[in-house]
């Protein structure tokens, strides 16, 4: 088959989009848009990398910082949220063996998030609105530096993303609790107890007392428990971001109406606490919980075995949820107005528990895999191991910076965004998501054959070496004092930045290989038809599992 034919029709016939269910289609739509947004975030990242190597004539300060502002919005919301939400929209009904509560809401979810990310990106691209994702008060309403219309476009985009997020949350919770047509009434209490992981705690307690377990067969499977828990943090985070967005919008409207408001009415430190409490529920809440749940699912699917120490895993997920509500102060260790007791308890001690909860997830996943050896080093397994490695590197890096002594010389340096954030996202999270993608690929595409294993291998090594390498060189620059939001125009950290740039380029190559592999596997015809209405009259997740 010629390359052109494969490009059009896919590998060995490619994707038969007419044979896809509505749930498969909505999942693939979210994933495809998420992968495209990942590419945009990667290109933005490379533009900033290039600027850090040598100042580029076509990027001035306001352009540079507007790229820096939209880069995490596109990367986290446009890409990661869509990939994760798409996968979970499929997994929750699939694992619970019941129909998704609403395909319509699922469609609105990815559309709102995609349009919202585009709007925020335009706010940066056209108007150079650049208060960064941290939105430290009163920077977002500093209209001496920013255009109010740009703020409206940017914050309006964030609001759309949050509305899409709330749609996802509603759909997930509704899918867990509702009783589908023709099924006997599902009682809410055991579902809620199981979804919160309380049954895991009770099982441990009963065992210690020598009693029979509270629930031999939990009402909700472990991965769904993780999705449920993570979604609680997703909800709280959406509420906080929306509240801050409304506050900023009030100031923007007042400015546009010609009656500017006094920004000192809002206490900057209190705002910072509130905003970080919500924002941190992404980084230290839903990401870690979703990732742990995904590891557990992948370990069970790869080995075909039950998870090691299931009850502990359930209980640990609940602990992680509670921990995630009390760790935000580690973002304020350099704020001298923040009470020392909050820095000590929330910033240091409670945060240190993330080492424990994430460490438990690593241990349980690895032991489950080991118990089933010998295993074939499939794409699913190698991406999973790389994902675990990413978090084994990034979480301790975060614990180190969440120390009052070290934070004094690490805060706002390249350490934060290099060894911690980018290793966590590009290696830990992304590799986990790719593992999930390779695992779900045959289920969601009805067994489309992968075009090239070579491209998959280049993708793997490019992402792994590029991600770790970039983080490492950024970390080394941090040791020499390089800040993360400062422009250096005299070549102060040129060597590190060239090396980080080479690693960044490897990440771009890896993404291109992945994209080519996906398109050549399913074909452009199949790809476009994913966005057409399904012709199958079923509410099941996959054609073989009809529930109607």
């Amino acid at each position, binding site marked *: 088959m010629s390359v052109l034919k494969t490009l059009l029709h896919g590998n060995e016939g490619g994707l038969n989009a007419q044979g896809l269910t509505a749930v498969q289609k909505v999942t693939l739509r979210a994933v495809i848009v998420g992968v495209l947004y990942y590419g945009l975030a990667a290109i933005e990242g490379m533009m900033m990398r290039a600027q850090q190597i040598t100042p580029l004539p076509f990027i001035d300060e306001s352009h540079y910082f507007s790229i820096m502002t939209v880069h995490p919005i596109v990367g986290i919301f446009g890409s990661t949220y869509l990939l994760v939400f798409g996968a979970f929209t499929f997994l929750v009904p699939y694992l619970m063996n019941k129909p998704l509560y609403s395909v319509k809401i699922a469609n609105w979810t990815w559309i709102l998030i995609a349009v919202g990310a585009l709007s925020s990106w335009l706010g940066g691209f056209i108007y150079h609105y650049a208060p960064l994702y941290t939105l430290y008060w009163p920077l977002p309403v500093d209209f001496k530096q920013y255009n109010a219309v740009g703020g409206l476009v940017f914050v309006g985009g964030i609001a759309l993303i949050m509305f899409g997020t709330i749609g996802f949350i509603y759909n997930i919770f509704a899918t867990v609790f509702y009783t589908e047509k023709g099924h006997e009434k599902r009682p809410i209490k055991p579902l809620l107890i199981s979804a919160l992981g309380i049954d895991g705690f009770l099982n441990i307690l009963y065992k210690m007392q020598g009693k029979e377990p509270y629930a031999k067969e939990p009402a909700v499977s472990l991965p769904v428990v993780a999705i449920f828990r993570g979604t609680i943090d997703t909800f709280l985070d959406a509420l906080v971001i929306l509240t801050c967005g409304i506050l900023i919008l009030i100031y923007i409207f007042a400015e546009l109406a010609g009656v500017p408001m006094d920004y000192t009415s809002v206490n900057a430190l209190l705002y910072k606490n509130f905003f970080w409490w919500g924002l941190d529920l992404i980084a230290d809440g839903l990401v870690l919980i979703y990732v742990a749940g995904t590891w557990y699912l992948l370990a069970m699917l790869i080995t075909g075995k039950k998870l090691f120490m299931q009850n502990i895993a359930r209980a640990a997920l609940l602990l992680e949820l509670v921990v995630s509500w009390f760790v935000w102060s580690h973002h304020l260790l350099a704020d001298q107005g923040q009470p020392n007791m909050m820095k000590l308890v929330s910033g240091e001690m409670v945060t240190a528990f993330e080492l424990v909860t994430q460490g438990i997830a690593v241990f349980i996943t690895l032991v489950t895999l080991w118990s089933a050896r010998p295993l074939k080093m499939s794409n699913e397994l190698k991406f999973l191991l790389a994902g675990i490695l990413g978090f084994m590197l990034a979480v301790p890096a975060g614990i180190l910076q969440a120390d009052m002594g070290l934070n004094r010389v690490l805060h706002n340096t390249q350490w934060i965004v290099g060894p911690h954030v980018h290793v966590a996202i590009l290696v830990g999270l992304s590799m986990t998501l790719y593992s999930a993608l390779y695992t779900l690929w045959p289920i969601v595409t009805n067994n489309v054959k992968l075009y090239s294993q070579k491209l998959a291998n280049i993708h793997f090594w490019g992402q792994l070496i590029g991600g770790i390498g970039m983080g490492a060189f950024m970390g080394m620059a941090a040791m*020499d004092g390089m800040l993360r939001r400062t422009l250096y125009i005299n070549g102060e950290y040129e060597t590190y930045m060239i090396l980080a740039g080479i690693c960044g380029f490897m990440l771009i190559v890896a993404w291109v290989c992945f994209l080519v592999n996906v398109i050549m596997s399913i074909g452009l015809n199949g790809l476009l038809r994913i966005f057409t209405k399904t012709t199958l009259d079923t509410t099941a997740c996959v054609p073989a599992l009809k529930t109607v």
Partner: protein
Amino acid sequence: MTDSTDVLNMLKIVYTIYTVSVMLLIAWFAFGVMSPKGKPRIVKPSIFYGYVGVLVTVGVAIHIVTFNKIPWVEIDFKRDHITPDKVVNIVVKDHHFELPQKRIIAQCQEYVLFDVDSKDLTYGFGLFRQNNSMVLQMQVVPGSSNQLMWKFEKNGVYSIRSTEYSGPKGAYIYYENAFEVQGCETNDKYAMRKVQHERS
């Protein structure tokens, strides 16, 4: 006396060893999990609980060690009860740091209190050596008390830089050689080059 260079060098060594160890562990696991040799061993719960104990110990120990070994942590905790030998008042407005002198001079072993007040946006305050490495920093939040106490043990000339983003206009807030420490027996070798140059 420990300074930020010593702390960051130690961190570099510890984290590099950790990173290499973890990568080797995962590589070993990847080869091991494919190997058909030997039976898979059942991991006893005691091993798991021992591992959790190690994680808790490490998580807490990091903070105990740094509290005892990094001198500025204790000073930071007790700063309300220590009378400063010198107070450096700085006002920040419109992306400009209003310094008390063009070059602020502090004596060795003095408790210096940096009191920085922002009149508009959130900024950062940091001291940097001649090789751009960081000595200290804090956030400067409007409407809040932004005080950082420090004791300098080495001679050197340092630059002030805003360590927090305050919009594109604040991209280059930098005051070269704005702070000097005198009277110590030892020199901060990374903060001395410009002094020698100026004196020669």
